[in-house]
């Protein structure tokens, strides 16, 4: 299990970011400006906004501090919500390519690159949470996610609210500095061995802004652990489970696994197990990618 957790923690995305043309000085003409970057799957993309802009600062019309609050990201014309793990956003938008490595004839030389856009505008998209307080706002949002997760797991948020101030800061620093040992050590203080319920976010409509938090008990009235297939039966609109694909951390999951195990192995840095449910018709549309 520890090895899978390590792989999940170290998972990265190769991302090519096209910078909004309105931000670029006119001397470059119409030539697009790109930043190529490797981003951990387990992070919020907005934590990288300033470093991305810093890499092209010589070509920007304005100082980074003047534009940073008006920035958001898009992929395939969809808003990327900064407040869900970027790996989850990637899996939602690029659903057809999950598991597609089998189709690549020369997998040794194949590099998957996700093309997204950094957009700047005065009118922010309706579902984009404005970031007006920089990383401290992102930290507060993340801590609130953990309070919710803690409440679902334990029936109270006290596990998070009673963390020592040093532990709270170390917990956040583990995300910023990618220190898994520190993250696991502090999250163990919040996650009980036998949780009441499992913190899950379901992504079902192929859009990053379509999320649902189902309330799922760990063990049902018969003393059986809840499985992924029971969850899908309860919350998916599809009639035939055999055609459903459930993905977490970029990996298609067998439906007979129990949710507690999945949470322990695949839960994200925000304290939730993010599950993406897709149907065959969703993937057929994207084969041209």
């Amino acid at each position, binding site marked *: 299990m520890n090895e899978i957790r390590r792989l999940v923690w170290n998972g990265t995305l190769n991302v090519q970011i096209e910078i909004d043309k309105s931000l670029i000085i006119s001397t470059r003409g119409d030539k697009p400006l790109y930043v190529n970057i490797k981003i951990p799957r387990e992070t919020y993309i907005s934590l990288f906004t300033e470093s991305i802009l810093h890499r092209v600062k010589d070509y920007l019309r304005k100082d980074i501090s003047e534009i940073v609050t008006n920035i958001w990201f898009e992929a395939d014309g969809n808003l990327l919500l900064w407040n869900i793990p970027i790996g989850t956003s990637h899996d939602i938008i690029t659903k057809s390519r999950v598991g597609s490595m089998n189709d690549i004839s020369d997998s040794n030389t194949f590099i998957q690159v996700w093309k997204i856009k950094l957009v700047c505008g005065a009118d922010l998209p*309706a579902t984009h949470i404005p970031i007006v307080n920089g990383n401290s706002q992102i930290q507060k949002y993340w801590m609130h996610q953990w309070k*919710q997760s803690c409440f679902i797991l334990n029936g109270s948020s006290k596990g998070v609210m009673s963390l020592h101030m040093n532990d709270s800061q170390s917990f956040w620093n583990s995300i910023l500095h990618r220190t898994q040992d520190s993250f696991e050590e502090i999250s163990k203080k919040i996650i009980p061995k036998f949780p009441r319920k499992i913190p899950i976010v379901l992504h079902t409509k192929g859009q990053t802004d379509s999320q649902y*938090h189902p309330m799922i008990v760990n063990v049902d009235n018969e003393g059986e652990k809840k499985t992924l297939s029971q969850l899908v039966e309860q919350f998916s609109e599809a009639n035939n489970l055999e055609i459903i694909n459930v993905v977490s951390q970029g990996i298609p999951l067998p439906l007979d696994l129990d949710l507690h195990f999945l949470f322990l192995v695949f839960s994200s840095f925000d304290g939730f197990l993010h599950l993406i449910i897709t149907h065959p018709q969703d993937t057929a549309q994207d084969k041209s990618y």
Partner: protein
Amino acid sequence: MLSFEDYTIQLELLYKSHVFQEKNGYVTHNISKTIFIVYLKANKRIAEITGATIVILRIEYSQIYREPTLYIQLQQEYTDVSGFLVTKLCVIPDMTIILPNHIQGSFVIEPEQCHGAIWWCFHQCNTTDIVGDGELYKDTYLKRWISSYIDAWV
């Protein structure tokens, strides 16, 4: 903590008692079985601090915390160059400044996505501590919640 069933019963009773419709600055409202949205004119203090002209309150039920939840939006109405009256969402760095000083420390208010828009959510994790959930007073839970979360500053 309030069960969903009790929440829906108490919400309907509150609606029928006109507790919001009779508030100063009341403009209009929308109600469903589980969500109550009230539009109010911003009072002088909030208008001066934030520039907002409209305060929208949205009361919902949190299935995670099993508590009523207050979301708010501040909007500024103005006339654009074409002469149309338009509204703009007010984004301020710290929403707790709309609260009187003595209760600012009691609440955490952060922006969240909610039904396709951004609302500022009063965090629910300490709701029971604020409202108190003695069995004897269960029937007035939502009324007391409104007293703490809304009447204290609107």
